[in-house]
């Protein structure tokens, strides 16, 4: 295929896209709406994963030490924990700090503070707060601590065992939400692809007689097909650009008004930060679906 033919195929596609005004307009309109669904899915999964990450972040396990445990012993445990691959952060709270925090928490509660004074000494033990990279990993972290017999002497209690049911439930809820989200995204993506295919098939159906005439006039299958594929790609590209433009104010508005409600997640910032990814996803799906759908839609009418 030489340059002249290529130029004719692309030029022919662009021209017929412009001229079949109402059909092209309808195609672009449907594709835009469909790509918006794809875009909202991107936003939705971003919001979902942000929210889940925020919830996961709230889960931790506290290890309370007996009051007689010395600081070097505790720090040794901390360092051991920190080397575990499952552990994200370990925070050490000393006995004094625990007391200070306790006082602060009960600043309005004179009775408790009085009782504390009467005790004369600090009744609180030091503690370590452990955050795992994944909420499912707490069990193995806790097991690591209980396996070491030397720890048993200094560890008073680990609140994992009280929180176990809550953590487990939360973990499975997060997993379920994630996979439900994935299924929803997959379903809508499939629906979008189907809608785009159907729309383009309809647009090309209106040109079926034309395709037959082109065959009879002696045009090769390639020469007939290419302009339709080009027109499909143009429709996809245009729809993706329209979607990206329309999303700008939408993302801004949602970012402004719903950020607090979404736990600090700002959609507008997300849109700007992830623009290359969103751009590629929308333009890519528009162009690929438009082109591939046209390719298959024409095939049906080439059998003349």
């Amino acid at each position: 295929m030489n340059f002249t033919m290529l130029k004719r195929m692309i030029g022919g596609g662009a021209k017929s896209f412009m001229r079949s005004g109402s059909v092209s307009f309808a195609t672009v309109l449907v594709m835009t709406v469909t790509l918006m669904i794809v875009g909202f899915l991107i936003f939705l999964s971003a919001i979902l994963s942000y929210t889940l990450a925020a919830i996961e972040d709230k889960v931790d396990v506290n290890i309370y030490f007996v009051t007689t445990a010395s600081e070097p012993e505790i720090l040794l445990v901390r360092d051991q924990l920190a080397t575990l691959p499952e552990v994200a952060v370990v925070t050490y709270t000393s006995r004094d700090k625990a007391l200070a925090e306790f006082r602060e928490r009960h600043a309005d509660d004179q009775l408790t503070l009085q009782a504390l004074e009467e005790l004369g000494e600090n009744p609180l033990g030091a503690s370590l707060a452990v955050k795992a990279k994944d909420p499912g990993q707490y069990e193995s972290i806790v097991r690591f601590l209980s396996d070491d017999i030397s720890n048993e002497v200094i560890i008073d209690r680990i609140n994992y065992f009280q929180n176990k049911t809550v953590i487990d439930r939360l973990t499975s809820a997060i997993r379920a939400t994630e996979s439900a989200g994935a299924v929803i995204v997959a379903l809508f993506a499939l629906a979008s692809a189907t809608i785009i295919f159907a729309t383009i098939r309809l647009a090309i159906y209106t040109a079926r007689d034309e395709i037959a005439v082109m065959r009879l006039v002696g045009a090769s299958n390639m020469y007939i097909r290419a302009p339709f594929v080009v027109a499909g790609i143009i429709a996809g590209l245009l729809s993706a650009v329209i979607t990206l433009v329309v999303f700008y104010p939408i993302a801004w508005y949602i970012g402004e008004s719903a950020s607090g409600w979404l736990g600090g997640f700002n959609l507008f910032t997300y849109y700007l930060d992830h623009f290359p990814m969103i751009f590629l996803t929308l333009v890519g799906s528009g162009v690929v679906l438009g082109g591939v759908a046209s390719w298959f839609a024409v095939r049906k009418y080439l059998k003349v």
Partner: protein
Amino acid sequence: MIYFDNVTKEYRDGTPALSDVTLGISPKEFVSIVGHSGAGKTTLIKMLLAQEKPSQGAVFFEEVDIHTLPSSSLHHYRRKIGTVFQDFRLIPNKTAYENIAFAMEAAGRADDEIASDVPYILDLVDLGDKADHFPSQLSGGEQQRVAIGRAIINQPDLIVADEPTGNLDPVNTYEIIEILKKINELGTTVIITTHNKGVVDAMGKRVITMEKGKVVRDDKNGHYIL
């Protein structure tokens, strides 16, 4: 040049459209195929354009059995034939100029050739001033002249016209037939199917009469007799 060898066509439900048709057409002939509706004229043309395959027999175009050609290379064969239809079959979103140019573009002809040939052909079919009109802006006679322009632009060996005057008034019919006659005089084989007695009788050329899928008459200087 063209040879139908015992061609039979039965449609899927068993109705015969052509039965046992054998006929030959030589280069530079002008052949009219006449007959009632449903006599098999259009089926015969469709066989020749490889739009349909015969149930039995074969159709040869210069020694090639055209129904053995694969669909992907059929366009090379079809470029040797210019086709004109009763319903014109122009591409609706292309202008008169572009409809004619399309046949040249599809055949891979150079841009400068197209730029010089298309205006010449438009003048030949008397549409020089309507080059930028779309089919919907042209009358039936004008559309058919565009179709003829498209059929002859690549200088085919053969022009096939299926009821070319079927949708036209007498004046336009006369013009179209004159153009086809001129093309034939310049050395191109022409095959037309028609209902029009006046057209056939005025021509005084070979007439093939069909009835119920069979060739019933084949006259050298024929008349329209049914």
